[in-house]
């Protein structure tokens, strides 16, 4: 066997490098999360003393209890979930529908539609004109500004179209002979067959909307009823960033029961928004790996 040849020193050095690199990567990736988890489970005023690494010193679930019972946080979680679910479901369905239409090689408007969508990846109106447009459309101070503008994104459209192009055309032909309408062909044949690629773009969409805070900040920041979890976290972060230590101390003294500190709030919120994603993504790996190579290499 070729493998049986004796290992040279460079071979051994390479192995040492490979495994130490990967172990360092694991530590650097996970430590910030584990440290934040430990702080979120530690008594707030005790955390200020520092020295908490991977394990809480004075264990408490108080931080979670007070945040999860806070009506503002609770409401923001509802808005986050609503926008994520709505855009993922409708966006994925609509993207698939348009992708089917522009995958039809005989369709006269196919090139035109593809072009006007792809161009949006490179040319954008910019902050101010977009803001004025949304204002005109009544989308400022409005929940639907989270859903409508991002329903069909060019990048996702191209990924799905590439996938549908790969499906056998005879399926559509025989359905047509059976008298099926275009919409029926899409709904009954194309949609079920495209499940893997739709799962991919659903993941991308869901992660994007769960993480979004920028549109909240720009269009809806005056209305607390439309805030999302990420925006609440962003506000805590921004105030921590601009405040001096004594101000933080004063704030934490006035905070409820004087037990929850800004640092504890930040850590706990971080864990609350991270856990749903961290629990789900490992099981969806084959979908996003597949989608990424489909969109990146074949395009």
């Amino acid at each position: 066997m070729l493998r049986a040849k004796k290992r040279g020193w460079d071979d051994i050095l390479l192995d040492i490098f490979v495994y130490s690199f990967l172990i360092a990567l694991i530590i650097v990736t996970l430590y910030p999360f584990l440290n934040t988890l430990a702080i979120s489970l530690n008594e707030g005023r005790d955390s200020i003393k520092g020295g908490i690494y991977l394990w809480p010193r004075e264990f408490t679930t108080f931080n979670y209890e007070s945040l999860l019972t806070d009506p503002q946080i609770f409401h923001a979680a509802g808005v986050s979930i609503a926008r994520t679910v709505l855009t993922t479901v409708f966006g994925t369905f609509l993207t698939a529908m348009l992708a089917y239409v522009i995958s039809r090689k005989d369709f006269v408007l196919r090139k035109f539609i593809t072009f006007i969508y792809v161009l949006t990846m490179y040319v954008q109106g910019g902050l101010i004109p977009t803001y004025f447009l949304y204002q005109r459309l009544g989308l400022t101070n409005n929940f639907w500004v989270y859903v409508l503008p991002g329903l069909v994104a060019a990048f996702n459209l191209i990924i799905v179209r590439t996938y549908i192009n790969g499906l056998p055309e005879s399926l559509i032909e025989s359905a047509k002979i059976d008298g099926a309408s275009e919409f029926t062909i899409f709904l009954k044949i194309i949609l079920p067959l495209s499940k893997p690629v739709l799962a991919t773009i659903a993941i991308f969409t869901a992660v994007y909307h769960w993480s979004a805070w920028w549109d909240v900040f720009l269009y809806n920041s005056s209305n607390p009823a439309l805030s999302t979890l990420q925006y609440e976290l962003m506000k805590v972060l921004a105030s921590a960033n601009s405040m001096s230590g004594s101000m933080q101390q004063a704030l934490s003294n006035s905070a409820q029961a004087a037990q929850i500190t800004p640092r504890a709030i930040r850590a706990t919120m971080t864990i609350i928004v991270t856990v749903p994603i961290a629990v789900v993504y490992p099981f969806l790996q084959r979908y996003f790996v597949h989608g990424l190579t489909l969109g990146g290499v074949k395009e």
Partner: protein
Amino acid sequence: MKKSGDTFWQKLWKQKALVLMSLPFIIYVIIFKYVPLWGWLMAFQNYWPGNSFFNQTWVGLENFRLLLTDPVFFEVLRNTLAMSLIKLLSGMFFSILLALVLNEVRFAKFKKITQTISYLPHFISWVVGANLVMNALSTDGGIVNDVLLNLGIIDSPIMFMGIPKLFWWIVGASHVWKTVGFGAILYLASIVSISPSLYEAAVIDGASRLQRIRYITLPALKPVIIILLIINVGRLMNMGFQQIYLLSNGRVIEYSRIFRIFELDYGLKMMRYSFATTAGIFRSLVSIVLVFSANQIAKMMGEERLI
């Protein structure tokens, strides 16, 4: 039946079902993506929202002159390009390195677990990311200061986030932290598609593992690297606005203010709408020039092109 003789309108009528299905999408994209382009005209006006669009003062290229002579213009341009380049190059370097390293792992289970962990930062928002970075660099119990103190390298904690010259590198490092695992996916996919017979032949010729990486794997990655470079060169003016916005603070503004932050400050905060729109147009124009130049260079080098 004269199939090919149909005029455009006859074809359109025959395909009315498809037209009907796509019409809402055409209207949708025009409203949400193309109507704002019309707003570009604001750059040639002294726009004031109180007046109607046609009742504005037209000022020609005055806003462009103001932009190019603004005292912080070159600082903003420098910060935008410098941070994007640092992020682009370091991000690619570490993603390629990670893909090469993962490819050398012989224990499938360890490889799988490491990959899964490496994807995690990609899935969190920059709000969470910035939060974690600031925690790690904080002066009260941040891990970086604690390690440096315990090793005796420093005597008192350093306020990393307050040092202007350090800001670019904090942005670069946190970018690598967040993107390295996900970025490696594409390179790893290309490595997997390299024909095994190439490696077998190299082994017979007595090539070491390092030599196989140097002479087979790296050259095979060249096309992907070039495509990704072209795509990202077009994004140099737009890269990672949220990250920089969230990490920056008043003490480091000279090194953190990029175009989109500049537009936000002048546009929404100072209400100089026309001026901010001009800055946005400038950014788009530079992006277009960059992506076409990169495309052209790739063409001259005989590589695959994007457009």
